[in-house]
């Protein structure tokens, strides 16, 4: 359908779109207060950006160092070139251990690889244990935000969903009551699980350790009970040294939710006693991005701050992006992979630049969105009508005389055309005019008035020269 149509649907319910906007703006404001409380905030951002760019430039070396050190701790490292390989690796580990029940903590990578439906197809029961993820899983819809997956759902709707699936009282919408119900339900799932799967926030080359950040502790519960822990990560999650972690942990939660740090930042160095730790490192198009002008989009630490600040995301909702990662960063990553299906995303942006300035690792998001538009043009994927308009405009603007003439005609036409025609839906002016008036067309342009003024001044000067003479 494309972003404009889905966004128009979302904004059509003005009250809901404003509610969504305010909910996310609230998170953005919390982030602002937290960022302001750190005097070296901008220095932290610059440092994080430098570490990430350094790591990406030597990624192959750091990945090998990580593999060596993780293996030394007893972890098994797997390499997946794409989503299919990733899913196959996960499935075969689970099948080896005859796993029937899998608990998962949040992992955008497995969303990207569409792991859940694949596993379910192979008879494995998968439970997402992050509360928001569980809500969207029960509702059979994708997350609408990478940190707040159920931000688009109101508590009354959660109540209905839990009544249907978890047997809570009909009409109950008290968040505490609902959370408690989810907690009891998930506790059951944790106890029954044969294996736990997590994402990875940071993998440290120097130590071979991985770090997983959650607020609910669900990753720890998920991998603490069952003997098998599978950790899935995109290959860009590397950082060189343990001491670099401090920079990112200080930025991550402050940027994401306005907390000083995530409630749980859990470090794993090898498997628990008697258990197994499998780390699946996935490429799935990342090498290609790394080699392109869009490489800095791989620096993303998935905090979601660009979504919270994006005035378009806040008013159009995550689902309007039809993409695992929505918002500004998703509008870069997804069209790079599937440009045909997602060619409207780089244009779902007013180029305001708020995302670039909020990003904790200083990805020049809006510059990349700008560059991505040219990238789409190079693949012949721009909307034809728009491309034609731009060609015509460029022809006009290349000839000053033609520009002046077209300007005069257009202004005259705007003054004389009856309102119902000007504002008819069939013209670009009509699209503008659905909610807005067009500017009033003046009789004379600036250049005409300026020329008259110059001529008048010159003739006055002439006149006074003559009378003086």
């Amino acid at each position, binding site marked *: 359908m494309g*972003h404009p149509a889905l966004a128009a649907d979302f904004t059509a319910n003005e009250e809901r779109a404003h509610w969504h906007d305010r909910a996310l703006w609230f998170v953005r404001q919390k982030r602002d207060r937290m960022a302001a409380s750190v005097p070296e905030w901008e220095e932290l951002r610059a440092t994080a950006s430098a570490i990430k760019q350094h790591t990406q430039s030597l990624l192959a070396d750091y990945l090998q160092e990580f593999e060596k050190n993780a293996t030394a701790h007893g972890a098994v490292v797997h390499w997946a070139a794409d989503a299919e390989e990733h899913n196959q690796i996960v499935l075969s580990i689970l099948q080896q251990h005859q796993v029937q029940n899998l608990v998962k903590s949040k992992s955008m990578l497995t969303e990207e690889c569409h792991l859940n439906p694949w596993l379910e197809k192979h008879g494995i029961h998968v439970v997402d244990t992050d509360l928001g993820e569980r809500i969207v899983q029960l509702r059979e819809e994708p997350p609408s935000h990478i940190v707040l997956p159920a931000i688009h759902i109101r508590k009354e709707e959660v109540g209905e969903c839990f009544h249907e699936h978890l047997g809570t009282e009909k009409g109950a919408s008290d968040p505490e009551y609902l959370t408690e119900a989810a907690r009891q339900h998930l506790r059951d799932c944790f106890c029954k699980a044969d294996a736990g799967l997590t994402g990875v926030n940071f993998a440290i080359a120097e130590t071979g350790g991985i770090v997983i950040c959650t607020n609910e502790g669900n990753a720890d519960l998920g991998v603490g009970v069952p003997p098998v822990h599978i950790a899935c990560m995109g290959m860009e999650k590397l950082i060189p040294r343990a001491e670099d972690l401090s920079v990112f942990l200080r930025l991550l939660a402050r940027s994401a939710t306005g907390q000083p740090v995530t409630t749980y930042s859990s470090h794993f160095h090898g498997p628990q006693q008697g258990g197994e730790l499998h780390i699946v490192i996935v490429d799935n198009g990342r090498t290609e991005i790394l080699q392109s002008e869009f490489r800095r989009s791989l620096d993303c630490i998935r905090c979601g701050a660009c979504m919270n600040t994006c005035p378009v995301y806040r008013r159009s909702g995550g689902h309007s992006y039809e993409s695992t990662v929505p918002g500004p960063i998703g509008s870069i990553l997804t069209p790079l992979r599937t440009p045909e299906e997602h060619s409207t995303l780089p244009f779902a*942006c007013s180029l305001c630049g708020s995302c670039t300035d909020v990003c904790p690792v200083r990805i020049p998001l809006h510059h990349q969105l700008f560059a991505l538009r040219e990238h789409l043009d190079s693949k012949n994927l*721009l909307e034809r009508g728009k491309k034609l308009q731009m060609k015509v405009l460029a022809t006009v603007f290349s000839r000053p005389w033609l520009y002046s003439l077209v*300007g005069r005609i257009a202004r005259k036409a705007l003054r004389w055309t009856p309102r119902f025609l000007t504002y008819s839906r069939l013209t*670009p002016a009509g699209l*503008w005019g659905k*909610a807005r008036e067009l500017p009033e067309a003046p009789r004379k342009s600036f250049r005409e008035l300026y020329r008259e003024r110059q001529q008048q001044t010159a003739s006055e000067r002439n006149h006074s020269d003559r009378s003086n003479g």
Partner: protein
Amino acid sequence: MKVALFIPCYVDQFYPGVGLATVAVLEACGVSVDFPEGQTCCGQPMANSGCMDQARPLAEHFVSTFAGYDYVVAPSGSCVSMVRNHYDHLVDRQDQKAAEVRSRTIELSEFLINVLGHSFSGSFPFQTGIHQSCHGLRELRLAGCSEEMTCRDSLLRNLLEGLDGIQFAQLQRPDECCGFGGTFAVSEAAVSAMMGQDRIDDHLQAGTQVLTAGDMSCLMHLDGIIRRRRLPIRVMHFAEILAEALRTPGLQTAEPAQQGGE
């Protein structure tokens, strides 16, 4: 000092008053300007649409039109940012002339304060709401933005602050985008309009009587909504405010006249 005036195409066609106000303000500062008639459009609509092949000839045309001036002054942060920040992809990077034009193209408030060091007096007794246009704010850094924890003065506010009687509206969201965004305003019309309405609602709650900005494009979009909703907010480019203040001397200049009358 050789100063050229760069009037963005849509200002030329739809807001000639803003161009004239810019001339009046610059002349009041003792600067005489040239208006090279060959100028058309900086190429931003094409570049923002991804059509770099269409933007390129316009960038080259811009460079040849404005070569040789000490400053190219424009009452638009957005068009200035296009020239300064995006022309390096469009024109020959080795070309000295192009590099000079890029670095000498400057937004009006920056020119008035950072180059001329001029301050304005006069009267403007209105509750004024400043819309920080995004490209001036985040690409030219003409003010501090709410995302970055870096202190910066707002040049626009500094320019207006000296006017007698002016008061500034306190917004709940000081620098959210108005939703114009060039072709975005049409291709994402629904979101664009909602963003504009939300900005205006913020100005309404803040008691804004006059809404001002450094970019007429944002104001064109916001004014379109204001007129459609028949709201009591007047929209003015800051150059128009300064030009109006110049015509209505403030207390400091008015006082001697009153004393003379006694």
